[in-house]
């Protein structure tokens, strides 16, 4: 069995060879395609640009200027935001990072194990277990959070990261289990059967055949777990009580209060800062995604 890292898909080479002989009409069509995609791109990038611009604006301007033109440069928003809460904002970013890290490890390990069992192994109760797993993500969080809170408070876990991380270590995020199941089922079964014939046990098959082949799914899981944990709010609000435990998303929300005074400038400035790590993780992660191993198959 051989695997090979493929940087350029064969289709790309195909297109490139065709391009030399392209007619003007086809060229125009290609140009149009690019224009459409770029137009789309602007539509997509606008909110981020607007956020960055807003974070450099005075408060009145934030609400009055929908455009991207910057009249003044209010860098004080960043200073105020960074120092405005009890701890420097980095403190909250680190808390968020710790939570996210715990969740990523948890999801990668526990969900891939469960997914392997569901996708490849035969056992009694499989269908029922699978149905139960999907059912667990169909109840809105608002009705399970109170019983869950009471449970975790009995354990003395309030104001720690455990209520946020431990569930992930125990594969409660059915989204990722299901995602990985679908990816594993896309891997030709001959590959792991071949491994089994070579004398690999279930664990070895999982570890050295399935896991490497489902790298795109693992990268996807990493990216999404990071982003969703980073942006998640409700659970973190409920479980983290002392300000030194607040995550970035909870800290951000304490800048604004609909019934009182709000600090919109610092909110925007810190929102931009909070987005940076997410964007970086996505940039790095998606590079892995494209390098993802495409099997050439064979034995």
């Amino acid at each position, binding site marked *: 069995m051989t695997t090979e890292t493929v940087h350029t898909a064969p289709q790309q080479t195909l297109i490139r060879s065709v391009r030399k002989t392209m007619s003007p009409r086809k060229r125009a069509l290609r140009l149009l395609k690019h224009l459409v995609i770029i137009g789309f791109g602007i539509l997509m990038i606008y909110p981020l640009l607007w956020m960055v611009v807003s974070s450099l604006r005075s408060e009145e301007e934030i*609400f009055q200027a*929908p455009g991207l033109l910057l009249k003044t440069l209010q860098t004080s928003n960043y200073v105020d935001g960074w120092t405005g809460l009890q701890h420097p904002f980095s403190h909250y970013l680190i808390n968020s990072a710790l939570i996210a890290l715990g969740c990523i490890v948890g999801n990668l390990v526990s969900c891939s194990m*469960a997914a392997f069992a569901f996708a490849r192994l035969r056992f009694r109760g499989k269908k029922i277990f699978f149905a139960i797993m999907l059912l667990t993500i169909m109840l809105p969080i608002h*009705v399970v959070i109170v019983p869950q809170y009471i449970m975790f408070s009995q354990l003395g876990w309030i104001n720690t990261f455990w209520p946020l991380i431990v569930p992930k270590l125990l594969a409660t995020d059915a989204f990722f289990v299901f995602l990985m199941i679908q990816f594993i089922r896309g891997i030709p079964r001959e590959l792991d059967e071949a491994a089994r014939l070579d004398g690999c*046990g279930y664990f070895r098959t999982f570890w050295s055949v399935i896991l490497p082949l489902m790298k795109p799914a693992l990268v996807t899981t990493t990216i999404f777990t990071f982003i969703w944990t980073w942006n998640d709010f409700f659970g973190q609000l409920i479980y983290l009580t002392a300000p030194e435990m607040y995550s970035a998303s909870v800290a951000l929300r304490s800048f604004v209060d609909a019934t009182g005074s709000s600090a919109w400038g610092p909110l925007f400035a810190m929102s931009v800062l909070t987005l940076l790590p997410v964007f970086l993780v996505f940039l790095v992660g998606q*590079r892995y995604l*494209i390098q993802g191993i495409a099997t050439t198959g064979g034995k």
Partner: protein
Amino acid sequence: MSALSEIRSLSRAGRSDFTSEANKKEERAAYLFLLPWLAGLVLITAGPMLVSLYISLTDYNLLQAPNWVGTDNYTQMFSDERLKNSLGVTFIYVFISVPIQLAAALGLAIALNYGMRGLSFYRSVYYLPSLLGGSVAIAVLWRQLFGTSGLVNQGLEAIGVANPPAWISDPSTALGTLITLNVWTFGAPMVIFLAGLRQIPTMYYEAASVDGASQLRQFWRITLPLLSPIIFFNLVLQIIHAFQAFTQAFIVSGGTGGPSDSTMFFTLYLYQMGFGNFQMGYASAMAWLLLIIVGAFTAINFAASRYWVFYDD
């Protein structure tokens, strides 16, 4: 560790012939792999779910001990006009935004995968709105885009449209702007599609090219069938998520579901009942109604998947 080596030796012993002894070993291995998930189900997920089922049969108000009221909460739902309205709003949202969002995500994933230059740049750009999804800043942005004197209307007025709609604050268009917002955050399903496309073994395409199959044919015969498990995944999960849509409506409407309940999603109403009006019993009953509805849709999806989802195993 010893358990693992045990499995290994056992499976080695049984590999030549698939006897019932081997079945047992396989089953044992399966439960070992499932152990974290089973523990999570027993210790974390199932308890609160069952408690919420129990709460749905009480008058629990969060602050006092619950009293048993039987199925009162469930029968009360039948005469709740606002609940019916919120179901209607949610159904419209699910049936319009999910197909559009998935089509956009799939279309772009394929376009990006087929050798667009600057691939990673575009992919990142298209993902941007999804990063912003639940941010408080989105509420401000959406008002500035779709407010009565927002950017959209400024544009419309510039090209001569008199009295453009109020979008976000008009009951007849507010839901539409939320659907737009949701479609706009198609990044997540797009990335999953891309990951799925990357996983298709290139040997299939190579073989097809040798046979002289056109690109279109390759798409229909190879890409779509092999991607179908991922399409199915996205369809099932996006429907589940859309039924539970909450954050965007909450943020954009300031938690009211307005104007005039036009963006009052089912879960938003449920949340207002539970936390705003201290009717957690009723909210829990609503949650179980939602579970039945979403469960039914998911079951239909799985039943239908037999006809169009192709698994390689």
